[in-house]
């Protein structure tokens, strides 16, 4: 049962009555992993009926804090209070019983189970001995619909694209009435309209008196949504402010602790050179997705569209990771055999959107992750050269600003954003001429975002090319010299120059018929 139905109207009234008593409070909360202190002395107050945003740079400790609040990890010092009572959550289940639920930054679902089975795992509805699948599927379908997810309760999670999985996670949190709902970067892999639907859901929760904690690196979202904002920096709490007085720029500066300029790099002039990469009549997954396109040297080509429009599939098909047919040329040469390795040798690499499932080996150290795709670069005469590997890691840590307290950690122990940077570093180590980046700044903080934009800019200005798939419209618009918009597995529009606006992208992505008037598709 989701909130809207579960709580009668007096929920609102009572929320207002106790508006000043925090739903949850932390006292001197700290967390260390061995000698590494990740969080210290956090005193956070969350009020009922508020959306409380927590922002901070990558690795600031946001996710760690949320895990402490929701029973996934135990604090090293300090404690929690709920409604004035000191509480201790030994497990996430205990926290959920007390009404606190966390939507993880990373996907945490059982891949072999269906959507509904995942939603109800551990709290199955049963009739007598039997689980009541009909009821569960029914309720699952309702929650899914309420957050705008298009997957079916009977779909196996493993078969779903990343964004749908994220929505399933969110649905799981909203299945029952809650006192505190924590969203850890729920929108990082969602496209615009899904984001809009989610924001509506979040506001709905607030209006019912639920305390919402919301983490996002998309400051526009934070600005639009938050009632109060808490800033974390290097594991310390800088303070809590009412959202009203804060602009996005203020937020960014509080996070980073210095002045920031948040501009996108200037657009580049389209060159008339031969295309670096040319894709003709690519047909992926037996026709589910098709497309033809080309990228010039010195160009950032954006690909926009809604979730499930087939952007990821198109690129995975191109690179040989999905069954596909069609012709592709790089530097004028036809690729006869399309495999990741062959493409890499020819100068094209693809960076996946699914860093946890397809990008990084979470149980392996940073160095072996970094060099996995470009082992040649750290190869000595006979063996892998550990020294070169260390040097490469040091350089990547500097270049990509990977915040890591020890280079001996496993990749899975990095914060989400830092994992993303590591993944970027890993792919760039292959020194590609063309790079396809699927969601380049997924979970990356505002300070580093501009760094990554500059990085892409520098790359293409040196005569290379970059294809950016992004669900963040401002990023797509700000970064790209040309934008392709996909809908239903087809490229439905090509936008250039002044045509590249958020409205046009959204328009093409949702009602492609009219695109011809606006974009000129080759």
């Amino acid at each position, binding site marked *: 049962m989701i909130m809207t139905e579960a709580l009668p109207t007096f929920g609102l009234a009572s929320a207002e009555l106790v508006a000043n008593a925090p739903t949850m409070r932390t006292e001197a909360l700290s967390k260390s992993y061995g000698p590494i202190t990740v969080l210290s002395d956090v005193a956070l107050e969350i009020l009922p009926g508020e959306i409380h945003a927590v922002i901070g740079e990558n690795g600031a400790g946001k996710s760690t804090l949320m895990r402490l609040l929701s029973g*996934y990890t135990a604090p090293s010092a300090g404690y929690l209070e709920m409604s004035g009572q000191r509480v201790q959550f030994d*497990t*996430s*289940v205990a926290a*959920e019983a007390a009404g606190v639920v966390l939507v993880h930054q990373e996907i*945490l*679902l*059982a*891949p*072999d*189970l269906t959507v509904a*089975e*995942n939603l*109800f*795992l*551990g*709290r*199955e509805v*049963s009739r007598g*001995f*039997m*689980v009541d*699948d*009909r009821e569960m*599927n*029914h309720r699952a379908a309702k929650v899914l619909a309420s957050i705008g997810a298009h997957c079916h309760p*009977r779909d196996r999670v493993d078969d779903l694209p990343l964004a749908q999985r994220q929505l399933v996670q969110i649905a799981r949190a909203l299945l029952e009435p809650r006192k505190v709902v924590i969203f850890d970067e729920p929108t990082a892999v969602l496209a615009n309209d899904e984001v809009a639907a989610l924001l509506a859901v979040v506001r709905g929760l607030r209006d019912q008196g639920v305390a919402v904690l919301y983490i996002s690196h998309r400051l526009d979202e934070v600005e639009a949504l938050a009632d109060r904002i808490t800033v974390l920096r290097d594991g310390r709490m800088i303070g809590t402010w009412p959202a009203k007085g804060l602009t996005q720029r203020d937020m960014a500066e509080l996070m980073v602790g210095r002045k920031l300029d948040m501009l996108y790099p200037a657009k580049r002039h389209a060159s008339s050179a031969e295309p670096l990469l040319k894709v003709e009549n690519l047909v992926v997954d037996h026709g589910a997705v098709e497309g033809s396109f080309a990228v010039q040297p010195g160009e950032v080509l954006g690909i926009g569209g809604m979730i499930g429009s087939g952007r990821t599939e198109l690129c995975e098909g191109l690179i040989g990771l999905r069954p596909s047919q069609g012709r592709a040329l790089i530097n004028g040469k036809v690729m006869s055999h399309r495999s990741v390795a062959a493409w890499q040798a020819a100068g094209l690499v693809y960076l996946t959107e699914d860093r946890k499932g397809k990008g990084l080996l979470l149980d392996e150290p940073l160095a072996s992750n970094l060099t996995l795709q470009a082992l040649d670069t750290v190869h000595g005469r006979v063996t892998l050269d550990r020294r070169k590997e260390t040097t490469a890691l040091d350089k990547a840590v500097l270049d990509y600003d990977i915040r890591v307290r020890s280079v001996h950690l496993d990749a899975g122990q990095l914060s989400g954003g830092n994992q993303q940077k590591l993944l970027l570093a890993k792919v760039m180590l292959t020194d590609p001429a063309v790079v396809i980046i699927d969601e380049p700044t997924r979970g990356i903080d505002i300070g580093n975002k501009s760094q990554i934009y500059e990085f892409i800019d520098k790359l293409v200005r040196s005569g290379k090319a970059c294809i950016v798939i992004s669900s963040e419209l401002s990023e797509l618009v700000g970064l790209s010299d040309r934008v392709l918009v996909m809908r239903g597995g087809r490229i439905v529009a090509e936008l250039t120059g002044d045509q590249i606006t958020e409205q046009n992208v959204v328009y093409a992505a949702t009602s492609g018929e009219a695109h011809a008037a606006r974009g000129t598709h080759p």
Partner: protein
Amino acid sequence: MTAAIAPSSAGPRRIRLADTGPFIALALVVLIGVLINSSFLSGTNIANVVTRSAFVAIIAVGATFVISSGGLDLSVGSMMAFVTGIMIMTMNRLEPSMGSNAIFAGAGIGLVVGALCGLLNGLIVTVGKIEPFIVTLGTMGIFRALITWMSDGGSIPIDRALRDPYRPVYFGNVLGIPVPVFLTLIVVLIGAFILYRTKYGRRCMAAGSNSDVARFSGVSVAKVRTMAFVIQGLCVAIAAICYIPRLGAATPTTGQLWELQVITAVVIGGTALRGGKARIWGTVAGALILEVIANLMVLSNLVSEYLVAAVQGVIIILAMLAHRFIK
């Protein structure tokens, strides 16, 4: 969930093509059988083969639980021998006082002992946190040694007086179906019910699919896995109950290498060894496939007796390949 289970009323159930694999493979080997020897399809032969496959099928139902919950049990063959030994000894001891009722008492004891053996495996795996492979390899040695010791290396025959009353449990019929086949059906139906229709089944799958997720959802992975081993033990005991009347004795060779057959049946049936997926009807098909292939080896005249195992291996691999390409 397989398509073979009673379809739910809630919306269309999707039948995955992949799940039909084991049945296609079964059809293929049966077809080969028909081509090779006309007596393959004779009533007696089919009845023999199906009845024989009951043991492996029943044990494999338990193995489906263990494997799908993320475990593995190599000890089933030895456990079977051990449980058989205990049951026969109990029956023989009770026969003077209880007459044929000793059979029921013995069967009851067998179920308890089977469950305890499974519990032992389960606890060492979950509480001791040791790879199931190692644990059950260890207990495989232990059970095998115990039956050897109990029988002094010889055999533990069942009392003559019990043979006749007990005989129908293997050789008899219920509604025209051989008793072991009937029992298998019941076990499979209960197994399918538990796996696909109860909370426990769900949690089994979750524990095997991603144990972290299961834990965070409040599923006690250790309990679920231990329980799967107990179910395995019960299945072994049930197989033992209908095994005894067949040859009337437990020996140190009883159930030897059955663990491999059982695991093969489960895997051929479509259950993944890494856990998280259970195809209980596929498991039954797998057990039948193995038994049919063995039967074919004897019925055909093409193969030197030395090469039987080779041809058997080739057929299993070919059947798997075939169903992959048909897909």
